[in-house]
């Protein structure tokens, strides 16, 4: 380690969101009942044929544009032929010759620094069924068979586990911003393969590439890469680099290591050829333009905008754009006329604190921007203090009641001049000794009087007004 440079390439598979599967009319949704989202074509009953889901192609094209790829003039699909019990047709419909995107690039941010990642291609394909292995039997669930998958392949342009994970995080966020996928690793919607090799710092040629397949979380991607870099570097420093073989390995979560599956020499010949059941179709320029128009601002673009247009700190802007739902909440606040800085403060402190504590999604959070505005309006009107505002916030969230209902009752600040003057004169008359000392120059007694007022009003006295009146009365 240290002497060497790592070269990393990624393959990222992401399930797309759609009503029906990519080549089948079966539902595409999470389903706990096995073999329920299934049409005859999903189990390859003889004579069934694939029918392309246009929405999936559209979403795939959008991601192709997000990655600044070139889109093909004609779209068609290839068959990838191999036998496996989770592959009902004996082939997977995918894109080999003419993927939805090639030769792309996208900018990501790693530890505050921006860097480009080069994209080899992005293609649309179908997922396989899922297998559950038991002691002496295996069960096949075809719900997943035919679910749309987007696979993107980077060039070997990354050099650390940090960069790899930053890229994956960036893409996950992009999928969500574009609303083409839930991109939930917990639901198995994202799976990655990583290719790792090492080389001398000054070397020109890449080292031997090792592929680690089917990693199901970004944490494991991080660990797998670092393990491989360490494993390969150690062998290289020991003069045993010939033991690093071009092979496919898998990541073992328990031991945090990678385990050899098969050598590249045994690689399967997938015998790709164009699927004759799906006619080649032209991708119209007008359709592409339509899709391009619908691409939303992505995380980094939003971050720049928040910093530039709303003067948010880099830190706050970064926190807000991290999740699409945060950004949407923030932007809705702005639409309601809430000041950007105020909205940002509430969101990044109280609100995120609360949803993280409760482990809920912001989408399920009771206090919508409209309700938040009720609190902020009262602060701005001076009817409540910021301390009170926070109390109202928690009360509203807990009771799932509008903040207004707490402001109108005894929570309301005493801002009535007459009422406050009355309270203050009473307090001053009861504390003649202190008034005398104050007038003789003991200035810090001012806070004592404020405290007395607050005590009397149980904190409801408008502090600004209180100070104003106190000053006037004491100066008499």
């Amino acid at each position: 380690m240290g002497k060497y440079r790592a070269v990393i390439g990624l393959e990222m598979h992401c399930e797309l969101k759609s009503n029906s599967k990519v080549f089948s009319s079966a539902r595409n949704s999470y389903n706990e009942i096995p073999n329920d989202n299934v049409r005859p074509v999903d189990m390859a009953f003889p004579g069934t044929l694939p029918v392309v889901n246009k929405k999936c192609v559209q979403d795939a094209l959008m991601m192709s544009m997000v990655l600044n790829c070139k889109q093909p003039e004609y779209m068609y699909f290839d068959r990838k032929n191999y036998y496996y019990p989770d592959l009902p047709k004996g082939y997977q419909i995918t894109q080999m010759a003419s993927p939805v995107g090639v030769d792309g690039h996208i900018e990501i941010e790693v530890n505050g620094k921006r860097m480009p990642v080069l994209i080899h291609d992005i293609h649309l394909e179908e997922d396989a069924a899922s297998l559950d292995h038991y002691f002496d039997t295996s069960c096949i669930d075809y719900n997943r068979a035919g679910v749309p998958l987007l696979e993107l392949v980077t060039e070997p342009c990354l050099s650390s586990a940090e960069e790899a994970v930053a890229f994956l995080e960036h893409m996950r966020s992009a999928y969500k911003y574009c609303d083409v996928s839930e991109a939930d690793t917990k639901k198995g919607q994202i799976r990655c393969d990583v290719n790792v090799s090492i080389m001398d710092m000054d070397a020109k040629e890449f080292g031997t590439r090792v592929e680690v397949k089917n990693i199901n979380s970004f944490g494991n991607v991080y660990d797998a890469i670092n393990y491989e870099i360490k494993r390969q570097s150690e062998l290289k420093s020991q003069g045993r680099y010939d033991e690093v073989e071009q092979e496919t390995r898998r990541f073992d979560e328990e031991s945090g290591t990678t385990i050899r599956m098969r050598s590249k020499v045994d690689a399967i010949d997938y015998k790709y050829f164009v699927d004759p059941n799906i006619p080649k179709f032209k991708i119209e320029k007008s359709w592409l333009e339509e899709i391009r128009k619908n691409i939303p601002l992505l995380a980094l673009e939003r971050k720049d905008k928040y910093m530039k247009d709303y003067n948010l700190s880099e830190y706050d802007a970064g926190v807000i754009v991290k999740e699409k739902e945060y950004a949407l909440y923030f932007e809705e606040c702005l639409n309601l006329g809430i000041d950007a800085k105020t909205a940002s403060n509430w969101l990044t402190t109280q609100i995120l604190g609360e949803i993280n504590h409760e482990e809920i999604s912001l989408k399920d959070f009771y206090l919508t921007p409209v309700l938040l505005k009720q609190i902020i309006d009262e602060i701005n009107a001076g009817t409540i203090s910021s301390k009170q505002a926070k109390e109202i916030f928690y009360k509203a969230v807990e009771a799932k009641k509008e903040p207004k209902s707490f402001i109108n009752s005894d929570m309301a600040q005493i801002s009535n001049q007459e009422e406050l003057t009355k309270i203050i004169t009473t307090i001053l008359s009861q504390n003649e000794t202190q008034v005398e000392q104050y007038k003789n120059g003991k200035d810090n007694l001012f806070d004592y009087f404020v405290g007395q007022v607050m005590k009397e009003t149980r904190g409801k006295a408008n502090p600004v007004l209180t100070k104003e009146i106190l000053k006037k009365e004491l100066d008499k």
Partner: protein
Amino acid sequence: MNYMHKSIEELHEDLINGQVTSEDLVKEALEKTHEVQEKCNAFVTILDDAKPGDVTDNLLSGIPFGIKDNYSTKDILSTGSSNTLKDYVPFFNATAVENLYKAGAIPVNKTVMDEFGMGGTGTTGHTGAVKNPWDLSRSCAGSSAGSACAVASGVYPYALGSDTGDSIRKPAAYCGIVGYKPTYGIISRYGLFPFASSLDHCGVFSRNVRDAAIVVDAMKGIDKNDMTSWDSSNIHLLESLNGDVKGKKVCYIKEICDIKNYENPTEELKLHLENFMNVLENIKKLGIVVEEVSVDKKLLDAEPSVYVAISCAEATSNMSNLTGIIFGPRGSGANINEVMMDHRTHGFSPLIKRRFVIGSYILQKENQERYFKNAQRVRRLLVDTWKKLYETYDAVILPVGSGPAKHLDGSKDILTKDTAVLEEHMQIGNFGGFPSITIPDGFINDLPVALNITGNVYDDANVLNIAYAIESQMNFKNQIAKEVK
């Protein structure tokens, strides 16, 4: 009284007039089915419990028909004549079958074929060889052997076939009936067990051209389940048969039809080509312009290999779903690979396995360019050549095969390499998806021979009309097989 030798229109009239009922027709068709089964072994399944249907305005209503066993038929055994599906009962109908059901047609049997359509002899099905009703020692050709045999035997007026190379048009020729494979995609392939998807066509056997038009009118239509299907609602085949072919131009190809191309031709071949040239002479009387054209012999000679390359490649992939895991008999073995291998080893006939090996070899990374891609290039050249002909001609007219049906044991047939193109040229109809129809055009030693008419894509009405006019000029319409002794 017997009815099943009649045409669809005659039967419809009899049904409407109340001269006969659907029940009578079904009964007669089933009786004939059993007779033909006894003699020729043409059926995988006989639907003895077939119910008669209502007679409506639809020409096909209440009339029995047969279905090749590679069409998916709901609740009816559908084997593709393969042991890999010997007990497979589908739960959905092929779109083409569904369309006929909607027309009121009554299925009475499923017919034997070469296993999954891969074969041209009608002898490789899992229930045994189909015999030719004209001569039981001969084959019907294939793959749609049972359907051809049944229609020729007068079991019913029509039966469904499928055609990847010439699987409808060759058996039709050898059985003395009409075999029609319309333009690719006019009939949905949904529910047709695939052989080679880019070449597979649904089609029909009948005993006259009008019946073929009626049946395809009912089978066709765009289907949301088949992306290669197209809207043909503006095409009405039966209505377009007016027999007026004055000024139509057809061509025949010198390199195929001239007897001088063949060294040591058999007597049958001489008679066959002579007969064909006589027919061409006759059809000029209809006002059809007949011209000889020349096509590069080298290109023609490449055709059979191109077919083998493309069809085997697609077949090996298409039939990868046959593993015995989801359907078909489960194989045995210590692990999943052994289970799949056992199923396939025991399920497929040697011929099919040979084709899978060829297909896999051709698709291998290192061979794709040389075999698969080149085959596709030559396919394109052939299709372009034919398209070029269609700029001048309405159709290409050619003799089918090198004579009448071949012997089942094969020993008496003299096969020479130079007749390969004559035997296989109808595959070009599959390469281009062209509408193509075979009609009987004579007899050699009391056995039927035929000619084929192939036109440009979407030009089905024109092709059928030419066939209709030529048929009307000859005496082979509605013929029923007479066994030669």
